[in-house]
């Protein structure tokens, strides 16, 4: 009994910080002209999360920085789901089919979620990207897209 009481006392005496993070997997995939894939979002937090998925085409500058834009006309995307509620410590898999009529295509599937707020009450929104590179041939597609953009850094 003393042991239990000691534990309860410790509970109120000491303080720590609970840290959690959300993850996406895989981060990058390479595809041929037709691409059927999926990515998973893991909610490592203790409360459920609402996640929405949006697609963007992007281009790279010579430093490898991406600039997003609305999905190109030559990209045909079919998402299985556009949003989901992810349980605490749960994982949700989003499936998609992607076709690119004018390769190469670079598409970012952005998963957005509100994960908390600051002490001042400002909401913290996290956006995780699952990036798809589509070329005529799957092999070394990302490398070719980066080379075409003149990216010299890794």
């Amino acid at each position, binding site marked *: 009994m003393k042991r239990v009481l000691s534990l309860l006392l*410790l509970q109120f005496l000491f*303080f720590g910080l609970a840290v959690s993070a959300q993850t996406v997997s895989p981060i990058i995939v390479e595809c041929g002209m037709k691409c059927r894939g999926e990515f998973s979002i893991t909610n490592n937090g203790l409360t*459920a999360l609402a996640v*929405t998925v*949006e697609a963007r085409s992007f281009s790279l500058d010579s430093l490898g920085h991406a600039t997003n834009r609305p999905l190109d006309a030559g990209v045909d995307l079919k998402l299985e789901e556009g*949003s989901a*509620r992810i349980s*605490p410590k749960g994982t949700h898999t989003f499936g998609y089919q992607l076709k690119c009529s004018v390769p190469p295509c670079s598409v970012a599937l952005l998963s957005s*979620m509100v994960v908390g707020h600051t002490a001042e009450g400002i909401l913290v929104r996290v956006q995780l990207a699952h990036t798809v590179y589509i070329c005529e041939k799957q092999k070394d597609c990302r490398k070719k897209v980066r080379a075409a953009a003149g990216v010299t850094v890794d």
Partner: protein
Amino acid sequence: MLRVCLCVLLLAVPASAQVLQLSGGRSTLLGGTGGEITAFFPESTLSASAGFANGHFVFGASNAFKFHGLDVTAGDKDFGYSFDGAGLGVSTRGLFVQRNTRHTSFAVFVGSTGIGYATPFMLTAKVQHIGAGFFLQRHFDSGLLLSSLAVIDGGKHSAIQGLSYRSNSLHLAGSGGLLQNQKYFTGEADYQLFRSLTFSGTHNDFFLADHLTTNSLSGFAGLGHITLQASLLDGQYRLLKTTGASAGASLRIGSITVRSNFYESNHRVLLVHVVQEHFHRWTVSGIVNRLQGQTSYAFGGGYHGNRISLSLDHSVLFFPISGKGFQQATTVQVSLRLHDTVLNFQTNVDPMMHVQYTTYASSYVPGPLAGAAMNSPTHSAGGKFVIGGTVVDEHGQPVEGAAIQLQGGAVVYSDSQGRFFARMKHDKPAALVVLLQEFAAPGRWAVTSCPVDAAPGTDVLIKLRREIAP
């Protein structure tokens, strides 16, 4: 009386928790039945477990928190570390402190040690001795890793030192010392001759009730769609020596993988041919076995979805303790997610070749401090008929995070453009409801206009009004 007071006290504290995790289950593999309640507070985590293990009532409790950058646990915790093919796990009850930095990890505990029951659904210990332990691991940029573990567990003393080196093509590891009053050594080496060709060798001593030794030598080659592997194994348990050899090849063409493996142990030859196909979230496999001139067939497979995951697998494992060498083992795994509750069932084959099972459920419940919780199910029913739309505010601006439920379907949320969609199985109108209490968008909202239902192929417009700014 003590047990009643224990339960009342442990349930009183979680009443003020932010989130509660409730778990319960049974495992023949781990020899226990019981449950655990974990209360997550903003700055600490309090757990309490109780159950029966091998016919005896057992309980445990712990409180984990940060203190000046240190991770502190008061109560029950497993002190378990492994490195370089060796390791030691001790169930402890006391004070446990650890700190991990980029290059250094250290942990120390002081208290008592005993028999622990660590399962996914409860963590308890049966105290037997006074104990203390220390673990230190240091990474160097050169690839060297130094590890040191010292434990006093009643009359059993352990002091293990480990050293390993890893470069792009070579991994060498060795450790030795005193493991529970017995001298021991273990070592392993991996050499990657080319990018696609790897050799490895290991030697291990396991200190169970009796001494078990295993050695292995293996090679692996990956050549595009083709992989080749071969290995030699031997094990000795008491006076029983078991040897084995295996070789195999696999070919992957698109979503289909074909594997053929040869296993030889104790003068028995086993041939296993497997054809496996992955399509989307399904896996199907057909297995042909040939043992002692007899042929048998088996089928396996699995499905991995967001709500349910199940698999039936056949594998060939090496059993040095029972002296039977390579044997086939069938395992079943089922996982079902119902809202915030996960149900799991899994079978395992123990070292004596007995089939054991573990089944448990785990759920998260929001506490009074958790704030509003999203409670509606949101797993999509799927389908080829799409109902979509846009959510805007009183100024025509898109509203992100609005929750909309379609009849017979899941709750969906609007994106940054205010767009949402849901896939339906049937080509008929579905009732549409805006769930204001489920919004991920900040603030309080009211519905200005929303159609009663929506038909597939149409684009609905939902107008909202913000009542209170966030």
